[in-house]
Structures are given as C-alpha cells and as structure tokens.
C-alpha cells in the first residue's frame, strides 16, 4: 500500500521492487565472496565486468525489442557478421579502420532493418524473422571469412585493452551503451513509443504512433548494439571469428528477462538488463573460481538462474 510518509524509505523500496534482480545479484555476490576468497578482489570484479560486457551490450539491444513485445534471435549472428565485416574490409578490403568500423555498424543496422521490414511490413512473427536472420547472418559471416578467423586491425583491437592501469575498455563501452539505452528508453519519443507498442499496439496506432516506423528503429537499434558487441568481442580476441557469439541470443534474452522485462512486452529497463547480464557473468565466474566440475556447471547455472528469478518474483508477490 502506498503511504505518504516515509518518502525515502518507500522510494528506495519501490526502487528495489522495480529492480528486483538487484537483490538476487547482491545475494549471489555475498554468497560467492564467502565461498571463494578470490572472488572479491578488484581484478576479479573487473574481470566479471569484462566478461559481462558482450552479453550486456547485446542484451541492451534486445531490451528495445522485448519492450515492444518482440524477440530478436539474430543478435549473436549479427555480432559475428559485423565483426567479420570490419576485419575483412580493413584487411582484405584495405579500408582505413574508421571506415571499416562505420561499415560494420551499418551491417548491424542493415540486418536489423531487414528483420524489421519482415516483421512490420511482411507481418512475420518476430521469432521467425529473426530466426531466419540468425541463419543468414551466420552464413554470410562464414562466406565472407571462408570459415577462418580474420585478424582485427591493430587500432580497433585496443578496444580490448584497459585505460589507465585498471579500467578495461569493454566495461566502459558496456556502461556507455547502457546509458545510451536508458536514455533512449526513458527520454526519447521512439523509446516511449516502444513501451506503448509493447503494452497495447492497437492503442499506440490509434494514438497516432507510426508503429511500423518505430519497429524499424527498434530492430535497427538492436542490430547496431549487436554490431558494437561483435566489435568488442573481436577486439578482446584480437580476431573476428565467424562462429563468435553463437547461442548468445538466449543469454541476451535471459539477461533482459532476469532484469524484469516481460516477453509479452511493455516492460523492461536498461538497468535491469545490466543487472541480469551481471548475474549471468558473476555466476559463471564464481563457478570457475569454485572449481565446480564441468558437467555440474550447467546444472548449477540452471538452478541458480531459476532461484535468482524465483527470489525476485516471490519478494514481489510479498510486497503486493
């Protein structure tokens, strides 16, 4: 129940209620720092950040799509295709690297636009359109690269380094993309329109929102974020791989949903998505540190994901 007293208190609890995954993350971090003495060091935490970066950036892009009630299965493949495009045009193609970077982003956007056209004008279910793109983009990445990894241009590879002595650039990029996603979602017209479309597409249309145009923007953004993720990934590996980020779409979607979004649309926030991606990364990092046997890891990851979201939904039910 809402009360008028207790401003800060109820605000912070309201904030927690809306960003419930935070609680799960905190519990996880506490548990892991008790279980492993290596966990709570600065280097390790930065590692977790770096390891979360690619998933988080993909997931920010997926957040737009999921907020509109869609789904994007192609993000992993598009990330690989964009990275391959960059590396190939910069090496074989002989383009200067800034041009290659632009081309790589354009590739991501183009894939997103194709998805959007199929969905908004062809009326394909997003699942099918982006599943098709999952195959197409992956196939094109293989075709362009002839199946072999391509070295990244030196200049771009520095994206995998650190600034100063500590701060890894992937973490920086992740935070910047998160802020961009948050601003788009909360403060821009297309962002608000995404919520309206996901909440009630017909109402959005009858309120004069150009639904198809907003969908174009949505999937283009998802493609662009995927391209950034692909470039960050390739920079970390110093090489663009045609098989990179395979299967990451499920991680990205999981991060968004753990972060509080609903696959039926209308809900979701960039901050929640970040927390979702961090939960996944912390979990994998922790299992490595605890030397959980490889076969058991998948079991443990599954159990912990279920528990994390369970904690969240039960707590939410308690407050309501």
């Amino acid at each position, binding site marked *: 129940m809402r009360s008028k007293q207790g401003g800060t208190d109820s605000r912070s609890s309201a904030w927690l209620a809306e960003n419930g995954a935070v609680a799960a993350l905190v519990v996880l971090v506490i548990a892991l720092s008790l279980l492993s003495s290596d966990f709570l060091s600065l280097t390790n935490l930065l590692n977790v950040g770096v390891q979360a970066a690619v998933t988080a950036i993909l997931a920010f892009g997926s957040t737009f799509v999921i907020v509109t009630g869609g789904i994007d299965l192609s993000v992993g493949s598009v990330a690989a295709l964009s990275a391959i495009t960059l590396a190939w045009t910069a090496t074989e193609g002989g383009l200067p690297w800034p041009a290659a970077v632009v081309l790589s982003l354009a590739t991501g956007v183009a894939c997103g636009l194709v998805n959007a056209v199929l969905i908004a004008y062809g009326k394909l279910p997003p699942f099918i359109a982006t599943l098709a793109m999952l195959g197409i983009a992956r196939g094109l990445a293989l075709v362009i690269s002839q199946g072999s990894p391509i070295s990244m241009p030196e200049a771009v590879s520095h994206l995998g380094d650190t600034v100063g002595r500590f701060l890894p650039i992937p973490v920086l990029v992740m935070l910047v993309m998160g802020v961009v996603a948050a601003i788009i979602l909360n403060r*821009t*017209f297309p962002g608000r329109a995404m*919520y309206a479309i996901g909440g009630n597409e017909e*109402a959005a249309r*009858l*309120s004069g929102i150009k639904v198809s145009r907003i969908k174009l923007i949505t999937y283009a953004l998802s493609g662009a974020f995927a391209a950034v993720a692909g470039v960050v990934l390739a920079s970390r590996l110093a090489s663009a791989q045609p098989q990179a980020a395979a299967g990451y779409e499920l991680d990205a979607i999981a991060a968004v949903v753990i972060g509080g979004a609903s696959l039926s649309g209308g809900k979701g926030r960039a901050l929640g998505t970040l927390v979702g991606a961090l939960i996944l990364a912390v979990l994998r990092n922790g299992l490595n540190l605890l030397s959980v046997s490889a076969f058991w890891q998948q079991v443990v990851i599954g159990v912990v994901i279920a528990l994390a979201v369970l904690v969240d939904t039960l707590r939410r039910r308690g407050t309501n």
Partner: protein
Amino acid sequence: MSEATLRAEGLTKSFPGVRALDGVDLSLRAGEVHVLLGENGAGKSTLIKILSGAYRPDEGRVLMDGRPVEIRDAGDARRLGISTIYQEFNLVPDLSVAENLSLGRLPRRFGLVDTAAMQRRARELLERVDVRVDPRTPVRRLGIARMQMVEIAKALSLDARVLIMDEPTAVLTTGEVGKLFAIVRRLRDEGVAIVFITHHLEEIAEIGDRVTVLRDGRSVAEVPAGTPQDELVRLMVGRPVDQQFPRRPAELGEPLLSVRGLTRRGAFDDVSFEVRAGEVVGLAGLVGAGRTEVARAVFGADRYDAGEVFVRGRRLPPHDVHAAMEAGLGLVPEDRKGQGLVLGAGIGENLGLVTLRDATRAGFVDLKGQRTAAARVAEQLGIRMTGLDQEVRTLSGGNQQKVVIGKWLAAQAGVLILDEPTRGVDVAAKVEIYQLVNALTDSGHAVLMISSDLPEVLGMSDRILVMARGRLVGELRADEATQDGVMALAVTDVAGSRAE
C-alpha cells in the same frame, strides 16, 4: 444552419461474411451533438472508425468543409482535427496516466521527452474532466470508470473540431455522466461538432440535437433529438419494444449467499449481506465504491483479509474460483475484454467455457453438445454473428457483452453475480436479459446485480444495497427506493474507511 463541418457519403465497409456498412451518409455541423443510434452490430463503431482513420472504407468518401479528404491513419485524423473516444479502451496499462494522455504527442525539449511538461499537461486535463488521480499512477490500477474518464481527457487534449464519442457513458455513474455532459455542452457552444453514441435513450433528449439511426449498416432516418423514445426504438429495431423494466418478483426462499464481515484493507471493509433464493439484490454506488472488488472477492477471484462467504450455508474457501463455482456461484465480470472473453477464440468456444468441465466425460469434451447449447444461447440473446466460429474479437461491443452473459446463462449458476451486465447492450437485448433474470429467479436462483445504471438497478432489484467508499452504507426496498434516495446514500462520507 451552416455548411456541414464533416460529411460522409455512401460509406461502405465489408468484413468477411458481413457487410457492416452499406452506403451510409452522415452530415455533421459545427456546434451540434449528433447522436448515432442503432442496435448492437448496426455499424456505429465501424462508421466512426472510418472517420478516425482506424479503417479504410471500401467505397464512399468523407468531406470536410466541403472538400474531400483522405483519412489513412490516426495521424491524418488528428491533423484534420478529428478526435475520437473509442468504445474499447485504447490505453496502455503499464504506462502512467500522464503518459497515456500524451501518447503519440509527447512534449519534447532538445529532442528528449519533457516529463515536467507532460505532468503539467496531464494535471490540467484531469482537472478539466474533474478526476482526482495522480498522473503518475499506471493506468492498470484505475477502475474501468476512471479509465473512461482518462480516455475522455485524452480526447479533449487535442482541441479538436470534430469530437467522436463511442458509448462514453456506458461505464459511468450518474455523477460522471453529469460532469461529461457539462463538458460536452461547453464544447458544443464553442462550435465543436460532436458525434455521440449511446444506448441510454434518455440521454438523447438531454444532450443531443439530431439523431441518425442506423439499421443493418444503412442509415434509415435522421430525426430531431426530441423524437419520442418509442419512435426512436421503432426506427432502430424495426418494431416496438416494451422497454419497461419487466421485473417480476418471485417467491423468496432460503438465503443462498451470505457474506459476513468481508474485508480487504484498502478496498472494502466489513461488508455483510444476504441474497435469498428468488431474489434480485442490486448493489449501487459511485465509481470506485468497491462494488467490483466485493463481487470478485465473493467469487474467489481475489483474496480478502477477513470475513466469510457462505453459499447454501456452506463456507467457501477464500480465493478459489473453482470451489465457488462448484458451490453454484457465477460472475459476469465488469471488464469483458480483460476478464470475460477469449478474444481470439470463436463465439461457440467462449459460450462453452464455463460448462467445459461439466461437458467432459472421461477426459473427452462433448463438443457437439457444447455447440448445440451455444447455438441456443446465441439465438436467445440475438447475438449478431456470421456463425459460431466467428472470432469474438470481431463482434461489435454489445454483442461481445452478450457472449459474456451468455456463457453464464448456459451454466445455470445458483447465485449469479452480474457486474455491469448490460453495459453497451441495446434496448431490445436489455429486455431479453431482464427476462432471463426473471426466469432465473422464478426457478429459485438468486441474482446479485451491480450496475451504474440507476434506473436499471431501481427497476430490476427487489432490494438495493448502497456502497460508499468500501462500506455498505444503506439498504432500500425496491418500492421505497428512488434515484435521489440512492444517490444520497452513495455520497455518504464514511470517514477513514479507505486508505487513500
């Protein structure tokens, strides 16, 4: 009077299996309230959806100020100054009231949404329709009546030249209707052309200027608003309808439903009442009085904090719809789209939903029996459809309502709770429904009827309970109740009874 602000000529629109509009003409002048009248499914909503850009006509054209115009989408309509309140809510449940009010036209500064300006605009608009609600509240939390007021506020925010209202009063109580009419009169005097759709005939004389009557997708007459109601009904239905409330009191028996001390903090408090076999009990109150909440709690749809519910003397477990149904309770919910219908399924499917369990033998459903029963109910209520397989989504609003009621008629519930049962239903069908209520009580069943339509409550109930702010504040016998009497109770201020 002057040249028509908006004219529609020969509008025709077909859907698979049905010609919804067949060469309809309409002329709308500045400064008039033009009432559209017609049975459920006559084509009223289809007509206004063409004017607002939601549908494109198959044939015919629309002129504004004598010039033909193309209305391809909502944006076009808005640019032409046409603003519409649809019969079905067009709000986004998870967004705030303020954002819904600015949907599609968010105020922007430096490319970013100007939240402060949005809140300011929302406050002004809510003030104009006199609704007290925090603009930051998500729309989902508003009751249906207040959602309707938000819809009205949203339509007003466009400062339109043509304002179209599709059954805006269907879910409002007398108080809100008064507020709405005051607004409509002011706009009319400012020269706005207004289209007004209603099934409450008494509203026509009160607010209307002219009436266009639609029947089977054709415009059959244009008459002044002062036309006697009997004549309007004859034009609309094609035959006279005796629209007295045909309540036929039945013999009272045992108490079938008793509710004792039912309480949910923040919603209703210490509600106790009984409904006896053969009785129709009306539950009246202002919007937000908590009637719907009580009904849902009794039926087991929601939790409650304290109190007990008995059916035929047996105590019901709380929050268990299935048990309530087994005991013989039924609920026709107020929100037909959200709670009453599976929109994507067929009419037959929906009508059979409640009886699905009973029609199952050894796991298999008697589909044939289900269909026969559905066909009978559809016939009885005069549901206008192309067949039992038509998707409920594509029915007209009133016909959807008939399906919601119909599925409970098929179930033969011992105690039927009706929450706004005749919302959006045309006069002829209303009488049908009243007859069915009579038949239920004749055969020893009981009915608890919640309605915001005071004449209906007064006309159909044997006893009237009045709620205000979550409490029962009075009880009136049918023969002693008057509109003023009920209203006086309904505005009782029960201090501190509801946490606000």
